[in-house]
């Protein structure tokens, strides 16, 4: 006779909880941060299986003294670096101004990308101007780095008479075909599989352009993330899949998205997609990793997944108050620093930049944003108008307006 089975202990549910909540000090000491320059740089045709370590490592180029070190140094010309710095500073000044405009009631809503400026700016610079971008709401830097007019962006935020989207979309949900910037959706994740579809189309047509897409670590739980990786892998789609791990999804920390067990970059490995984990606050590392992925895509070697490791320094949006769920001022303690400070430090270390030039640039950027702000406001704000004609509300639902909409438009008296 077998011995009686031991009575099993009752099960219990594990629910991830961040290490600190409001009331305690933020503490990042548990964060393993590899020194800059230590991650290896594989050839662009390296199979995913031979570079799995890079999904757990952290690609960093800028060291604590602002020197570029290691195999990922993209060795960019000072002019290019200065352009990047200017764009990042413009993004930050733009964010400040639009957030203020929201507080003043000139629009309904705004979302900053504070601390994440290097991502969109460096990535826009690392791909070709004709490559197609499928962003989330936190990549305003793509438009700015592509020199898209600030006034045009502001008009969208104000839903005013100059808004190319005719007041239809919530603030920051930009769209510009001319800028190669796909219409942003409010529904998380949808752009990820769309980008893969665009890339597949480019391959079908024998084009040379590639696609790039962004998603937040929180939204990787959506099905679209997995659909995108599946199709990208199966058809070896020419696409750069960026995953911005800023550690928060509104009030949920990255553990709720699965970050307790593994890295987000490691998700790519299961699909056989070469995957990198990169310091998202390091302009040079972001640029280099994106260039590497772009070269792969352009050489018909297929997709890459890049996790950009960063921190959402500001609130999720103007509707959010992070003091309710995380220690105050958490972003200021992020061990990987501020992307703008780090690039400035690098330029100074290179001997091509100075505090005085930095101040001049800051002033120039502030003036440009202010001038754009005035011009945009002269075209209207959400609280006071003017807007497009209300008649436009009925347009573009279909290519040609069916009888019932025509009738509703007349009924609306517009």
């Amino acid at each position: 006779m077998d011995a009686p089975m031991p009575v099993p202990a009752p099960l219990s549910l594990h629910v991830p909880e961040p290490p600190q909540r409001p009331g305690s000090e933020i503490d990042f000491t548990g964060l393993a941060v590899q020194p800059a320059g230590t991650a290896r740089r594989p050839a662009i045709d390296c199979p995913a299986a031979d570079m799995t370590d890079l999904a757990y490592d952290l690609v960093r180029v800028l060291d604590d003294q602002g020197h570029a070190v290691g195999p990922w140094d993209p060795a960019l010309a000072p002019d290019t670096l200065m352009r990047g710095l200017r764009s990042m500073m413009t993004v930050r000044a733009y964010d400040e101004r639009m957030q203020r405009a929201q507080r003043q009631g000139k629009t309904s809503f705004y979302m900053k990308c504070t601390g994440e400026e290097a991502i969109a700016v460096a990535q826009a610079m690392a791909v070709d101007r004709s490559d197609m971008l499928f962003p989330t709401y936190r990549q305003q830097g793509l438009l700015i780095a592509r020199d898209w007019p600030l006034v045009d962006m502001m008009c969208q935020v104000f839903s005013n008479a100059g808004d190319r989207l005719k007041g239809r979309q919530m603030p920051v949900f930009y769209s510009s075909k001319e800028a190669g910037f796909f219409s942003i959706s409010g529904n998380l994740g949808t752009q990820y599989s769309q980008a893969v579809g665009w890339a597949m189309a480019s391959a079908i047509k024998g084009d040379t352009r590639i696609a790039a897409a962004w998603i937040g670590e929180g939204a990787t739980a959506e099905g679209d993330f997995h659909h995108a990786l599946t199709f990208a892998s199966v058809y070896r789609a020419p696409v750069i899949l960026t995953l911005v791990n800023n550690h928060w999804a509104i009030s949920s920390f990255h553990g709720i998205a699965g970050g307790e067990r593994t890295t987000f970059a490691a998700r790519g490995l299961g699909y056989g997609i070469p995957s990198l984990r990169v310091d998202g606050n390091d302009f040079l590392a972001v640029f280099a990793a994106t260039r590497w992925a772009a070269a792969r895509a352009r050489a018909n070697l297929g997709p890459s997944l890049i996790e950009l490791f960063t921190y959402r320094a500001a609130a999720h949006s103007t509707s959010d108050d992070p003091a309710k769920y995380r220690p105050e001022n958490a972003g200021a303690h992020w061990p990987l620093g501020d992307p703008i400070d780090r690039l400035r430090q690098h330029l100074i270390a290179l001997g091509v930049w100075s505090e005085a030039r930095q101040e001049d640039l800051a002033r120039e950027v502030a003036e440009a944003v202010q001038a754009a702000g005035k011009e945009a406001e002269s075209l209207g704000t959400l609280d006071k108008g003017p807007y497009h004609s209300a008649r436009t509300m009925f347009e573009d639902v279909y290519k040609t307006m069916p009888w019932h909409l025509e009738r509703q438009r007349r009924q609306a008296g517009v």
Partner: protein
Amino acid sequence: MATMTMVQALNAAMDVMLTRSGDVVVLGEDVGYFGGVFRCTDGLQRKHGRARVFDTPITEAGIMGIAVGMAAYGLRPVAEMQFADYIYPACDQLISEAARLRYRSGGEFTAPVTVRAPYGGGIFGGQTHSQSPEAIFTHVAGLKTVIPSTPYDAKGLLISAIEDDDPVMFFEPKRLYNGPFEGYHDRPVVPWAKHPASEVPDGHYAIPLGKAATVRSGTAVTILAYGTMVHVAMAAARDAQVDAEILDLRTLVPVDIEAIEASVRKTGRCVIVHEATRTGGFGAELSALVQEHCFHHLEAPIERVTGWDTPYPHAFEWEYFPGPARIAEALRRVMEE
């Protein structure tokens, strides 16, 4: 008895049900520690523990599938979808699974899941934070659909929804979360405290699903409304000085056909109001029902006042919203017949 906002009343309903039954769990994006982006689950995790009130990964399809699985075990999950606009990824689990589980398993497996979702416009949410997708779900056999218009109803209906043995879509008019709204966006915001239906009893009480409420008695015309539009219809009848009888349907499926029939037979006229788009909206179903049940009593064509058949535009929120002026016009038209 306490004076509550709709947010507090919903919170109280979940609190009561979490306390009464160990089978009730609350899950959704940001519902745990933070207490939900609209604060409806505030404090529930602290009180009932992390294993019963918890944040989920951002995947509505996942939330719904998980909820169906939990229900199969015997729990009563209350799943929050952060906005009704974000339910669509969950549609397969909702429509093909939750709604049909009882039927396809011969009653062996059921899915007593309550799906809560803020819905409707009026907060400048643009097209992905303003939609009223109730008709998509009223069309699905196996789902019930409930929409409260006051704190008192919100608590009693949510308790009934959680106690119900079938899946219930529970749409919460977000414009009503913190105060009633008559549709005049340029007038000062009124707090719930000034409204009699903000008096909410302590503890457990249930408002049966499938029962409408007559919020205004009248003889001239019946207005069928639900959610935010109940308050807008009240304002419209007042301003147009029409002696309307206003039914707050509260449950769309199963709808209270007896109340509708009794009222329309009495008044002989009917105006149907909803914020959702017109074509294929729930108003079309109501219109058909009134025609089928009250044809010989009708003295004027049935009127529908609805959102336009466009996405919800950001800047033209108030041109889109079927406000009191548009309802008043419809009232005048049916009265002229």
